[in-house]
């Protein structure tokens, strides 16, 4: 590239000024957000499993919406606000988000590899629909792969943070 473009990306409240270009220390035009988060910002809580947009392991929030970071180019995220699993707990107190605590309380994982993506999808679902039914939770998580079959515990964990009278 002849000139170095820059983008500003806010990740978990921290602003990153990122240079776009072809050098190894620059973000290339084809670099995925997942790669930038994991390899440059060392936010490895976001997992890449299929790298193909199929499994949901790489789910993060982009301006509050759940997106697949393996299918999103970093260069497209200029000015955007990204939240990853590392950004869910309270930045001041470090307290876990109630949804994270619910996953602990319900042992809503086995190997735990898909869990960050599942939590991020569920969190976005609850932001959009704070009182989902069990069916809506299942539908909302349909893009998230889990091979151990922790689905049943996950649904219980998510439903446990839905205020009574939901649905």
């Amino acid at each position, binding site marked *: 590239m002849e000139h170095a473009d820059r983008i500003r990306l806010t990740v978990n409240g921290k602003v990153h000024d990122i240079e776009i270009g072809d050098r190894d220390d620059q973000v290339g035009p084809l670099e995925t957000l997942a790669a930038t988060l994991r390899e440059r910002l060392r936010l*490895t*809580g976001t997992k890449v499993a299929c*790298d193909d947009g199929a499994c949901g392991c790489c789910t993060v929030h982009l301006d509050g919406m759940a997106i697949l970071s393996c299918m999103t180019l970093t260069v497209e995220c200029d000015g955007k606000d990204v939240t990853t699993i*590392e950004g869910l707990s309270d930045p001041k107190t470090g307290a876990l988000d109630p949804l994270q605590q619910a996953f602990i309380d319900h042992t809503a994982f086995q*190997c735990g590899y898909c869990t960050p993506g599942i939590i991020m999808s569920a969190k976005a679902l609850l932001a959009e629909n704070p009182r989902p039914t069990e069916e809506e939770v*299942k539908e909302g998580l349909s893009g998230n792969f889990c*091979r151990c*079959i922790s689905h049943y*515990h996950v*649904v219980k964990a998510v439903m446990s943070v839905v205020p009574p009278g939901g649905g």
Partner: protein
Amino acid sequence: MAGAYTYIGRSTPREDASRVVTGTVQFIDDIALPGLLHGRVLRSPHAHALVKAVDKTKAEALVGVEAVLAWEDVPDWKGGMTNSTRVLDRKVRFVGDAVAIVAATTRKTAAEALDLIDVEYEILPGVFTLDDALDPGAPQLYEDYPGNVVTPGVPGWGPESLKDLVTGDVDGGFREADVVAEGVFGCENIPNPMPPETPGAIGLWEEPNKITVWVSDQAFYKHKGYLRRIVGSGFDIKTIGVPCGGSYGSKNMSWQLQLHAVLLSKATGRPVKLVLSKEEQLAAFTLRPSSRMHVKVGLKRDGTVTALSGRWLVETGHYSQTTQAQVAVGLGEAQLAIRCANWDLHPAIVCTNRNASGMVRGFGGQELKCSLTPILSLAMEKAGLDPFEFFKKNYVKPGDGYFWRNGKWYVYRGVDYAAAMDEGAKRFGWAEKWKGWLNPSEVSGTKRRGVGVCVHGNADIGEDPSEAYVRLDPDGTATIHSALVEHGTGQKTNIVKMVAEVLQLPLDRVSQLPTDSSNSPFERGPGGSRGTYATGSAVIAAAEDARHKLLESAAHALGADPADLDTDSGMVFRKNEPSERISWEAAVGRRTCIGYGRFEEDFTLANCMMTFVEVEVDTETGHVTLIEVVNTTDVGQIIDPPGLEGQMNGCLGSGGIDSALFEETVLDSSTGRMLDSNMVDYRWRTFFELPSVHNVVLETPFASHRFGAVGVGEVATAPGPAAALMAASNAIGVWLDGYPATPQRVLRALGNVAPGRTGGGAT
């Protein structure tokens, strides 16, 4: 039954729970090391070829490329069962076989370098099916395997390791039979266990002879010994276990990619990380074996099996990782499920030019069960037998014997599972839903429901030795030295609970050393549901030994008899004066008490899982919907209720029940190319398609260890597929002829059915 215990049997958070939910578990691909390079593998586009020449010049010239290695550049290291397969060979045997390996400063550069390697191949004819491979004129994959049949037997299990099952008098048995059925049935869709995390390793070579491997496998300690067998003595080998993002058995072994990383490190002087892509995982890492049986079975009308004879063909792909072991365990498991005095069953393991089969939960027995059950069903149908009653009658009972994997005879001393089976049948409503063979349980327009049942169990719950240390520090904490890595079963939490229970210490005062082969004694690692009994026994014994030493030291200091002392919460007290308590430190001073525990292999206990399945088939579309699953077992004592529940729910995925319904690896049989090696085309169950799953768990204490528990996770997938195919067949009134029950197969079966046809799918 948590009543008697403080921690055992109670739901407690996983020890790694806060790391899991915050994304701070460090999986293999999350590890950064100074100077770390990225490795990639150039893979063959041909199913069978000789590598005539590899031109690396252009790749080596690319900035950032640190090493490019082909077969000529590496030692003659060979792995696989009977050391058949070279770490990089001049012959490639499947589409995806390793041709060259590259290390570069970035992933992107490593990938670009692959495109710059020019390879000249001499293409050889390939064999892609069992029948083609066994043809007398078939192309041969290995000189050492004439006729493409792998050398039988497991060297590590001794000269008598189970290669076939020949006992009693089958001719006499068939004469005693009221009905005899014969048939051929296959389970040939080679599903992929497909853990979410792809396999990976980091290799570090340090001159002159030190090898360190970080690995994402479920059982890392044993790699130390396995790698030594491959590379020879004279190396200082250390293996480091990294949390494993799903395995289901498949990440028990990954010697080839570990050694690729080591060789690249040797060539560059830097650590090299090699993590497979999803496509590589699906197309070039291990699958389930393919299995086909041609057997004859004799039954009496009371459900007694009088004779079983025939041939079991197991297709293993381009090499055998451990297929002989899977055949041996499968033969053992056949005897656990079918009490029969007269066997004449002969397996053969066959190589073809496809990606290799390897370890997956179910370990040979699942594949055997999937092939054998439809033929057994044919006999049951002839004899008018209910399959639930048949399996209940025939599952191993205390006092029954069986030949296990090493060829030795063992007598079962566990519980009678009949009570658990009855309880499961009640929960499922078997008596109401079973309407006889090839009869639906319910019909509503084009929707027809059917039910099926199968059973599976394994005596490998006590396979191989385990060792552990438990160290008590005067500050009132305990540390477990066990080479046990977390791979999803929660076993690392369970051993904390066991130690906490023995010592009556709060869970947060029991920790574990980092998983590193240099700090812990021998541990084979999880596999065959051995974690609860084998690893558990070693850890419990170590905790008991440490406690004993602590109380002995305290008794000396206090002038008391150790038998009169007890401990809890890091305090020591006299049993008759429990209110007068002193800290461990006050009792033993600056002393560390180290306990050692060892478990010796034991094949006299076996677990059991019976699975009931109900499906609904739409006869118009051919679509099969899984409606309900009931799994039933007896584990002696639950260690962790949600952990056990999770393992049992795992019956659906990882090549379990869904492998009978829609999962399959699709190979182009003219090129050997895999057509669905990605997560879009390879089908998997989503959150929106969850059936009702109920798990019935009895707790009849086993004579295992002080908690009377046995493990059951490995077998959770095994009985379900055969039960699901049986259910779908009963729903439509005609036997499906193979796995999985895709709409195409269902519609074909319906279209081909002749009026009044009965009998198993076996033909």
